[in-house]
Every structure is written in structure tokens, then in C-alpha cells.
């Protein structure tokens, strides 16, 4: 679905630090090759300065590589715009419109059948935002709306930059399930994130992008992950106990310690651990505040770790 053949580029990704008025050096991509099939979720672990935003911007047809070719559904991305939903790190939304009208407008622009905006928003538990004008929303609500516009569209290609950052808590909890469901429907999902844990939570394949060079992130080595649960109305002990119980049922993760809302677990592989933690969070109906990799013998992960960008 997405074919990125030996692209090199220098520039800024759309919605990156420069668009937020911050000083930033242009990112560089060197001979990046990547293929994302329909029905799969692929994650790229790295930061904006490593080129993640630039790579998604190029895949969306919103910037051109200096070398190499990008194809989306067999065509240059500029010709497949309706099939592509791109959510940059700092998305631009039509502030003057209500959320419901933005959803209707988006459906019209993508030539999709008109659906009830409330139903679409309910998939990320933000249906109450439908009548609100976008300019009146707080940053987390705006980003959740941007995510809903992309993820609930019929776009065949989803390009999501830091999808879990600055979302409302219910939206963040529902997003992984929604992304996997979209992939199951045949969409090609490409996610860029600075967090290896988030990547493993959603992706079938994970790559590391470090200073513009892409490498497959193997995740077969043993790992230790710390999960901090979000404050909930019920007692901390109840939420943690329910999470640990669900984790035990998943089987492939062992609890090392549990203190308040912080639970540390280990598993034989980062992939298995990510699957077990995600399943336990869903089954226990608890929201994570933070998931961080405490220790991993994964070679690619260790190559990334000295930058201090990963847990």
C-alpha cells in the first residue's frame, strides 16, 4: 500500500516544531526504504529530529524527497490524497467550524458517504464535543478530534505522528484497539512515535529511525516494563489489583513489583509483553498514565536508548 523506495530528503515535517514557532534544525533522511502493506500497523520509533515527521509528511505527499520514490496505492501520494489521512504532531484544524461540521466537511472532501458525526466521535469517546466550535476546545480535545477525523474516515492509509500524545484519557485508551480494527478492515497504518513501548503496543512491525536511517527494531529479547496507571475514582489498590489479575490471565508477563498505581512487569520478549499489557489494560478497563521500558536487551532499542529519548 505504501512503498517508500530509497528516499533521501532534508527539511521540516508539517506540524513540527517549526510550525509551532520553535527553533528547529531541518531533519535528514538517508536512503530510507519501507513498505507498509494493507492490513498492517507499522511503527517508526524516533523523534522529529531523527526525521519521523518528515518521513510521514513525504508519505502524505505534502513534501517531496530530494531522491527516491514514494507510492501510495500504486500512485504518487499527491494523486492519492483522498485515500490518505495524515495527522501531524501539531494538526491544523478549521477553528471556525464545529466538530460535527468539520467531520461532515471531511467526509465530503474525501467523497465518503455521510455518517453521523456523533457515532464517529463516540469511537474515541468524544461524542460530547460534536456541537463545540473547534477554537473553543483545549489542546487535548483538538488533538483527539484530529485523530477521530483520520481514524474514523474511510482513508486506506493512516499516517499518524505521535498518535498517543496529548489525547484525552478515554481517546488514548481506545486508540490502539481502533487502529488495529482499521488495519483489520484493510487500512495501512504508519505510526511515528518517540516511545518504543507505545510502538510495541500497536504495531505489527516496528522500525527505529535514528538520524535519518531506518532499521527494523527486533523485539525478541527479554524486557522489563513499568506501567503507571492513571488516577481513578476508585482506590489505587482496586485498579492495580484488577490490572494485575488481567495481566496474570494474559500469561506472558510476570509482575515484579506493585506499589500504588505503579506496576513493574517482565516478559520473555518486548512484543509478548506489549501484547499482554495492552490486553490487560483493555480487560481491566484501566487507563495507563505512562508505560516505559525499564530494561531491554533488544539491540536496536539499546542503540536508541543513549539519546535519552526512550524509557
Amino acid at each position, binding site marked *: 500500500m505504501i512503498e517508500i523506495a530509497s528516499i533521501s530528503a532534508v527539511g521540516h515535517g508539517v506540524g513540527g516544531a517549526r510550525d509551532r514557532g520553535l527553533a528547529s534544525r531541518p531533519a535528514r533522511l538517508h536512503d530510507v526504504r519501507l513498505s507498509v502493506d494493507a492490513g498492517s500497523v507499522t511503527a517508526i520509533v524516533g523523534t522529529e529530529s531523527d526525521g519521523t515527521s518528515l518521513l510521514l509528511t513525504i508519505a502524505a*505527499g505534502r513534501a517531496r524527497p530530494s531522491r527516491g520514490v514514494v507510492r501510495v496505492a500504486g500512485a504518487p501520494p499527491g494523486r492519492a490524497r483522498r485515500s490518505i489521512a495524515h495527522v501531524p504532531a501539531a494538526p491544523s484544524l478549521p477553528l471556525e467550524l464545529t466538530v460535527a461540521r468539520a467531520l461532515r466537511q471531511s467526509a465530503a472532501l474525501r467523497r465518503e458517504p455521510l455518517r453521523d458525526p456523533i457515532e464517529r466521535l463516540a469511537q474515541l469517546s468524544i461524542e460530547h464535543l460534536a456541537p463545540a466550535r473547534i477554537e473553543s476546545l483545549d489542546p487535548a480535545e483538538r488533538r483527539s478530534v*484530529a485523530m477521530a477525523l483520520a481514524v474514523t474516515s474511510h482513508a486506506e492509509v493512516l499516517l499518524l505522528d505521535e498518535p498517543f500524545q496529548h489525547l484525552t484519557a478515554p481517546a488514548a485508551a481506545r486508540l490502539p484497539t481502533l487502529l488495529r480494527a482499521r488495519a483489520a478492515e484493510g487500512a495501512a497504518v504508519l505510526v511515528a512515535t518517540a516511545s518504543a513501548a507505545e510502538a510495541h503496543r500497536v504495531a505489527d512491525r516496528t522500525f527505529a529511525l535514528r538520524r535519518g536511517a531506518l532499521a527494523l527494531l527486533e523485539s525478541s529479547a527479554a524486557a522489563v516494563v513499568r506501567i503507571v496507571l492513571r488516577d481513578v475514582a476508585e482506590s489505587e489498590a482496586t485498579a492495580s489489583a484488577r490490572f494485575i489479575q488481567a495481566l496474570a490471565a494474559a500469561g506472558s508477563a510476570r509482575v515484579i513489583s506493585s506499589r500504588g498505581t505503579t506496576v513493574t512487569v517482565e516478559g520473555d520478549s518486548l512484543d509478548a509483553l506489549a501484547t499482554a499489557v495492552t490486553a490487560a489494560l483493555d480487560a481491566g478497563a484501566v487507563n495507563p498514565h505512562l508505560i516505559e521500558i525499564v530494561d531491554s536487551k533488544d539491540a536496536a532499542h539499546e542503540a536508541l536508548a543513549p539519546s535519552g529519548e526512550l524509557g
Partner: protein
Amino acid sequence: MIGLTLLRIARSRAARGSLLAWTALSIAAAVLARHGTSSTGVLVTSFASLALPLATLSLVSAATCGANIRAAVRPVVELGGHPRFAALALTLTTCAVAAILLGALGAATAAIGHGATDPPPLRDALLTFGVGALGAIAYAALLAASSLVGRGALRALVLVVDFVLGSGSGLGAACMPRAHVRALLAGASVADLSARASSWVLVAIAVASLAAVVVVTRRA
């Protein structure tokens, strides 16, 4: 993008304030000139020199949210729109709003300040509406094209250049909308061009500016 552009213009306090201020100035000048022999002086000085370019500037700034045109169309691109079509829709909508509002202001100014030596009132108002609308389209398209560079500050610079060069009557003035609008209203000529040629130059400025917008906003 059409609805969004109209919303942006309608909700912009700066655009509303600017339109009100320049309307008040033009009408006041026309009222003062009522008992003169002709409304041409008022039309050239207050309407063509000040109200037309500056009110159009405020409309373009409102439509682009005071930013670069690529940034202005980005919300529509992220909804699934094509940047080129979005930029074209934004520019054409702004041109249409400017043409209607400033054509009407020109006609009102001509009607109120109508003098004894002017053509019949209805004909004068219609002619001034046409010149005002054509001038507004040329200015709106030119200012939209100026918004392709940087964060939009070039718009004001273009108006300064238009003011300096367009006040003359030589070759430099022939490239500026100001000189042609003044020529069409005052019946004078720019670089020995006829009134018809001046009208075509205004059309050419608008078309060239629209082409620049379309070509440069392929990606956003």
C-alpha cells in the same frame, strides 16, 4: 474552503473594522464633495487610493488568518482536500467578496458625490461599481499571491510598492493595479494605454496572481 473563507472574513473583527472605517471615510468624502462639479476627485483620492487597497488587504488578511496562504489552507488539506483547489477556492472567494463589497462602496461613493459634469447617476454608479469590482479582484489576487512568501508580511510591502510606483504614469505604474484603477476612474491614461487596455491589465494581474497561487500551493 468557500464556506470557511466566508466564515473567516465574517468573523474577523479587523476586517469588519477596516471595512467600516474605509466605508465611512469614502462616504464622508463623497458627502463633502456633493456640491462640487464632479465626484472624480473623491473617487480617485479616498476610494481608489485608500479604501480599495486597504480594505482588500484586510479581507485577504482575514481569509488567510494573517498567515501564509499554505498555512491558511492546511486545515482543509488535513480534512482531505487538495491544497491547490483549497488555495484557489480561498483566493476566488476573497476576490468575489472584495469585488461585491468594494464595487458597492465605489458605486455608493459615486452616487453620493455625484456632480454636474459626471455621467448620468445610474450609469456613473454602475461604471464605478465595475471599476471598483475589477480593481478589488486584481488587488485581492495580487495580495493572495503575496501571501505565498514568508508569513504574509509581503502583502503590506506589495501595497507600499503599489503606492509608490502606481502613483506615477510611466512603465512602472503600468504594472501596478493602483495606476490602472485611478486611470479608469479619472479617465486619464497610464503609459499611453487606453481604458480598455487598463482593464485588461487588471485582468492580467488577477490571472497571473491566481496562476502563481495554484502553482506554488501544490503541496501544503
